[in-house]
């Protein structure tokens, strides 16, 4: 019998910081003043902000205890669909912590920053090779920021062509950030439906595409974990009407070494280094969302850009068509160091294996669970597969109930209720770093839960039981917002 990881143990209650505060404590080692005190005029200064006063042990214990209430990839399997929660190698952290990188001031000047510039230049090249594009910017701070960057470039391209357009086509399988990014550029979203088998049909796009439409945003593989097989025809249609194709490459983990978006009609693509390239999510960032483009859009890339002449590297800003700047300095350099380290550690073969095994794991789960959970689109998937709670409706058990119950089994739940095209979606992305035993354990857990749904639905409604807190009242939180202590 398979033993499930979930169990309970001693952890600790911990009050809010200020509830531990006592006047006169300070956990900071204060430098000894070596120059005279030089007071500012009183009317400029205010009271010291009322921050909690703690000893060093108080602070250490506070965050140690908080950390124990969290679930990370190092704690257990984290098959959160669309988030690519793969193992974050520790050596990447060692590289990013090197004094030469972490201590670098962004304005030290090119001459004294050659290491950072070279790393950025090389990383841009690597990503271009992986995606099949011509040029890359590393400036975007996250995936959505990359989308904005890409859409700004499309917008600038239309502007330069002398006629701005007003709409953008967005399929129902798109990530929520896509339409939001588009509307930041003033584009109105034209939402279209994916076909019965979950992928976009050229006719649908043809019907929607016109001269007032700036282009289309496609996620490929899409948020159903399916590959858009008609992408080339779709791109041709959009291009023929003078539009451009934006590719959301957050799901690149499925196709490295197999498909290069730059070769199949995509004009601009963003990547999530904090997914495909193993940088940690940090409980919600910082990430990094580089954007890759073909020759057409290269002139519009944000500045500064890194260029190499002979064997030195420098930033340039004199790019007449650039969309301008989207980050105060050069983007999330610390994250770039980690992704660069990952790519060097894997090499071309390694990255290709990553995609093959990520897809193998997802298909293995799909096949193993499709009798247990309803599988709306039963076709070979890429890196993730989307089920829903259709079979469990009869027992009044929802996707949410099953997700919460999975916590008691010791697994982080999949992404739930996304993508919106699937009602009650249960979206599983195992990633390549989970072993067959972990995945079998997960499959076993889901099957047991499906069984419980029949035999003992109450147990699911009450789930989670083992966590420090039980289900939280999100309605109350939103109705009476309490956003500070």
């Amino acid at each position, binding site marked *: 019998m398979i033993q499930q990881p979930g169990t309970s143990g001693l952890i600790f209650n911990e009050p809010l910081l200020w509830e531990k505060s006592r006047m006169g404590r300070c956990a900071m080692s204060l430098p000894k003043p070596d*120059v005279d005190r030089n007071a500012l005029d009183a009317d400029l200064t205010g009271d010291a902000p009322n921050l909690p006063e703690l000893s060093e042990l108080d602070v250490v214990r506070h965050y140690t205890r908080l950390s124990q209430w969290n679930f990370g990839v190092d704690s257990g399997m984290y098959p959160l669909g669309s988030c690519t929660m793969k193992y974050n190698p520790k050596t990447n952290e060692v590289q990013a912590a090197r004094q030469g990188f*972490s201590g670098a001031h962004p304005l030290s000047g090119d001459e*004294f*920053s050659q290491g950072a510039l070279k790393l950025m230049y090389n990383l841009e090249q690597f990503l271009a090779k992986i995606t099949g594009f011509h040029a890359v910017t590393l400036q975007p701070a996250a995936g959505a920021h990359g989308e904005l960057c890409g859409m700004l470039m499309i917008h600038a391209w239309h502007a330069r062509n002398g006629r701005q357009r007003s709409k953008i086509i967005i399929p129902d399988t798109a990530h929520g950030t896509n339409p939001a990014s588009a509307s930041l550029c003033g584009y109105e979203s034209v939402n279209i439906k994916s076909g019965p088998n979950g992928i976009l049909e050229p006719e649908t796009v043809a019907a929607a595409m016109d001269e007032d439409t700036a282009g289309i945003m496609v996620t490929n593989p899409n948020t159903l974990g399916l590959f858009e097989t008609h992408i080339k025809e779709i791109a041709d249609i959009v291009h023929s009407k003078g539009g451009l194709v934006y590719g959301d490459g957050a799901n690149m983990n499925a196709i490295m070494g197999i498909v290069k978006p730059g070769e199949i009609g995509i004009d601009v693509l963003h990547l999530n280094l904090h997914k495909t390239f193993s940088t940690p999510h940090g409980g919600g960032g910082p990430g990094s969302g580089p954007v890759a483009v073909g020759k057409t859009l290269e002139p519009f890339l944000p500045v500064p850009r890194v260029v190499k002449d002979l064997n030195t590297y420098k930033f340039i800003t004199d790019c007449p068509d650039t969309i301008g700047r989207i980050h105060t300095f050069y983007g999330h350099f*610390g994250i770039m160091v980690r992704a660069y*380290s990952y790519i060097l550690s894997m090499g071309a073969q390694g990255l290709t294996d990553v995609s*093959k095994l990520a897809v193998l794991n997802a298909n293995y789960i799909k*096949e193993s669970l499709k009798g247990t959970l309803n599988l709306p689109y039963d076709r070979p998937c890429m890196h993730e597969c989307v089920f829903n709670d259709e079979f469990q409706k009869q027992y009044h058990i929802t996707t949410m109930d099953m997700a919460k119950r999975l916590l008691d089994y010791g697994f982080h739940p999949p992404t739930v209720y996304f993508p919106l095209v699937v009602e009650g979606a249960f979206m599983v992305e195992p990633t390549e770093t989970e072993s067959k035993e972990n995945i079998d354990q997960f499959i076993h857990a889901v099957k047991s839960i499906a069984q419980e749904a029949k035999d003992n639905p109450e147990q699911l409604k009450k789930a989670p039981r083992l966590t420090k807190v039980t289900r939280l009242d999100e309605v109350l939180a939103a109705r009476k917002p309490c956003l500070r202590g």
Partner: protein
Amino acid sequence: MRYLPHTRDDIETMLKVTGHSSLDDLFAGIPDHLKTKQGIDIPESLSEWELNTHMEALASLNIACKTYKCFIGAGSYDHYIPAIIPYLISRSEFMTAYTPYQPEVSQGTLQGIYEFQTMITELLGMDIATASHYDCGTALAEACLIALRKSSTDNKIAVSSLVHPSHRQIIQTYIRPAGFEMVEIPYTKEGLTDIAALEQMKGIAGIAVQSPNFFGNIEDLKAFKTITEAKNILFIVSFTEALAYGLLKNPGSLGADLVAGEGQSLGLAKSFGGPGLGLLAGTHKQMRSLPGRLIGKTKDANGADGFVLTLATREQHIRREKASSNICSNNGLNAMTAAMYLATAGKTGIREIALQNHDKAEYLKKSLMSSGFLPAFHTPFFNEFVMKVPENFEKKRKTLIDDHCVFAGLNLEPFYPELKQHYLFCATETISKDDIDNLAKEVRS
């Protein structure tokens, strides 16, 4: 490869289950003409040990590999980081978790960010702080968009010419496509934003002022508030040096409607400019227009306190194109780091560090004056200030770097062409009296 657990047997067994003949067969559904013909042309994989050598070699091409003395701030500041912070933040339960979508197993992140939001509102004197943004520049751009969207009539945002140059460029990039416009408020001979000029401006939906401004000078925020009240438009305050508000009157008390700031000074490494920490705060009135995530307090099924992501109805994953912003992942781990820093410093600590920053900067200014530098302005500042330097300085500055790893100020001319021979200097608590005396000696002409 040590990150890939699959043994040959595993792969075979799993392929049997999926009904594929090989790993390549998994991709049979992708039409051949869409598959790439050549592999990925990147260097072959390095062992962990080759990687260490390679990366140390790269890092050593940055001057920062040596302990260098940095008299430059300009948006990235050199402050002490207590040893407990890198240790605590590296705990994998924080580092390797995703956005807290499942609150029952994310209370560590959620309480931590709730505490962050609270301490930031304390620091800035505002009602609400978000769970973080990318950096000050992007947070400020979003703040400008809030102001612009609010106005039915006016499509201009007035931005001080003493807002960080990069931030002004980001605002441009963000607002232009939506048909908005940025107008710059000139600065005065005192190195302050020109209020008089502002008063003349028409069609303005809001104003943005940085204090301490890019020259390091402290703006008279109250005066701007009077104008924004008169014009009934939003008053946006920004800053790049968060520690300044350990000492200065906070923007909330001076009437800011929105505050966008950089939190890098709060325990984060300079890291060549990123990732930093975008701070974004507002008054209650602005709650529903604020972009990005918010953590709220609630109860669990047993009535116990707990924390969740809340007011998601502003966000893209629910609202899609109608969202107040497209931001999804933010800079959460850095927000947690800043919270650790603020809790470590505490009320007395942050005030003392702020005071020391100001003391060092004043001492540096005096010392440079005694070495023949001329103060460009005579206005109160925090830890940065502008000096007119002697003729031969640029050469000296270069040798100081080469021989002593000392970075003596930032040339302002590229940012303000009119300010020839003007340099922006910074001194923080990490700069000792000796460092300053040595610098003054070296540059004496």
